[in-house]
């Protein structure tokens, strides 16, 4: 599969919009365009094969479904996952002759995505570092009370950072894509150690995302119990996420009341009303 210049440019543009920090704003950019599922749709549209795009996007989405970036801790870069990883994976699939709907196809896609996504974090740090230059300009403007210039600093100049760290890398990788994939294909046979490892990594990496979230939630050992309870709900009882959320809601109410009681136990009165407000 060959990716044309115009296609590569479109992908590069999406990369600029969807990264963290990105020019799309976090709601439309990072949390919409950046999600691999949406990325799959967009890549599918650009590359002219929506079905494969979505299938690959779904496969990668599983890996990054709980991707949080607390305080700029980025374990995988979605611009790279969605707009370098997905196109390359699509190229790889067509080159290996695999169907995206098969489990082999899914595994291949996942591995490509995670490889690219992890390496892509360097793009994130690059972008954030270049932004320091514009911020420097911003501080000057504040000093000189030229506040209108802040808009340029916040919303204009960062495009330059993205030209360097999102656009160009994406365009190059996508153009070289077919060759890269071809290289990989000859060097790494499907049943070889390297590929098996790559596939296994694909299934292990999501654990990191979940663990980052857990780090925020688990302060003491007993905090693991709600997490394990969630595992039981889904794995042992086989119920879906919305139902699990309802059950979680039962316990959230209890936790709320318990904590409120603990905090207000020496202050009388106002609590009956309090309860209403939740």
């Amino acid at each position, binding site marked *: 599969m060959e990716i044309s210049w115009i296609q590569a440019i479109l992908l590069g543009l999406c990369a600029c919009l969807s990264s963290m*920090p990105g020019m799309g704003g976090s709601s439309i950019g990072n949390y919409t365009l950046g999600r691999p599922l949406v990325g799959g749709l967009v890549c599918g549209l650009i590359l002219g094969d929506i079905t494969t795009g979505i*299938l690959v996007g779904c496969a990668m989405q599983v890996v990054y479904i709980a991707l949080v970036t607390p305080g700029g801790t980025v374990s995988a870069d979605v611009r790279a996952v969605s707009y370098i990883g997905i196109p390359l994976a699509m190229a790889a699939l067509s080159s290996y002759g695999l169907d995206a709907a098969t489990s082999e196809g899914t595994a291949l896609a996942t591995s490509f995505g995670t490889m690219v996504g992890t390496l892509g974090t360097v793009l994130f740090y690059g972008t954030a570092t270049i932004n320091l230059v514009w911020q420097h300009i911003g501080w000057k403007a504040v000093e000189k009370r030229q506040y209108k210039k802040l808009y340029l600093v916040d919303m204009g100049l960062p495009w330059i950072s993205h030209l360097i760290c999102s656009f160009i890398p994406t365009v190059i990788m996508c153009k070289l894509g077919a060759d890269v994939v071809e290289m990989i294909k000859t060097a790494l046979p*499907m049943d070889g150690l390297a590929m098996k490892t790559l596939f296994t990594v694909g*299934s292990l990496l999501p654990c990191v995302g979940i*663990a980052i979230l857990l780090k925020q939630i688990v302060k003491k050992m007993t905090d693991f119990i709600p997490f394990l309870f969630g595992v039981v*709900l889904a794995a042992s009882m086989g119920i879906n996420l919305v139902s699990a959320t309802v059950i979680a809601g039962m316990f*959230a109410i209890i936790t709320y009341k318990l904590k409120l009681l603990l905090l207000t136990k020496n202050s009388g009165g106002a609590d009956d009303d309090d309860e209403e407000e939740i």
Partner: protein
Amino acid sequence: MEKKLSKKALSKSFHNWYYGHLTCFSQEHMQTFGYLCAMLPLVEELYDNEDDKAKAMNTYTAFFNTEPQLGSVIVGITAGLEEARASGQDDVDEETINGLRAGLMGPIAGIGDSLVVGTVIPILLGIAMGMSTGGSPLGAIFYIIVWNLFAYFGMKFMYFKGYELGGKAVDFLIGAQGEALRDAITTLGGIVIGAVSATWVSVKTSLELISAETGEAYVVLQDQLDAVFPGLLTTLFIIFCWFLMAKKQMSPIKVMLLLVVIAFVGVLVGFFDPGLAY
């Protein structure tokens, strides 16, 4: 000298935040420039005097970072407080405002990251992936629409709620009820994340003990593990990653590299095997 912000200025302020909170992110100042841009329309409307403007803008040069969606409420609160300050209320000054911003940004980041990014988005994506099974774009479209409506109107609601309540919102957010709410949300988040991981993450071993005589497997390790606790291996890997990051202060990137090593060794000894071949 009572001053009242116009709908228009508030709306501009909100949209500046909605779009620009992360566009010029750096590891040093994070969302500070986004915040400045969000306050600018308000400050320009409230103060005629250039010195007053400068004094006001200066307040918001302090470092700021939080979860952007939920964080709208903080921007809204400061809008209300800035209005009060401009109206000459004595008890609202730079210290109050920045104390409040500093006090709120941490808790709101914690709640937001686990509630919005760790819970709402995975659930929406989970439903969407279900709809996109087989490569249909339906799920992706569903996600784009639902998430963006939720994010846009949710942020708007937060912003204006914060503006209305002003200082009163703070009492709630860091008072007993706010703390109880945070606890409740943490419990909910913990459970849902457990369910998310059991639903979407799947670490499996391929280890089998084969009887020399019959050639049949008499121990299929994965089955044994599932009999002990469904999803055991996945859960253990997640807790292992958590342990490395939370207890051993390892960075996510290092953990991922370690996982690559584990995957490699695991494949070598036959613990992992994605089971693929041409």
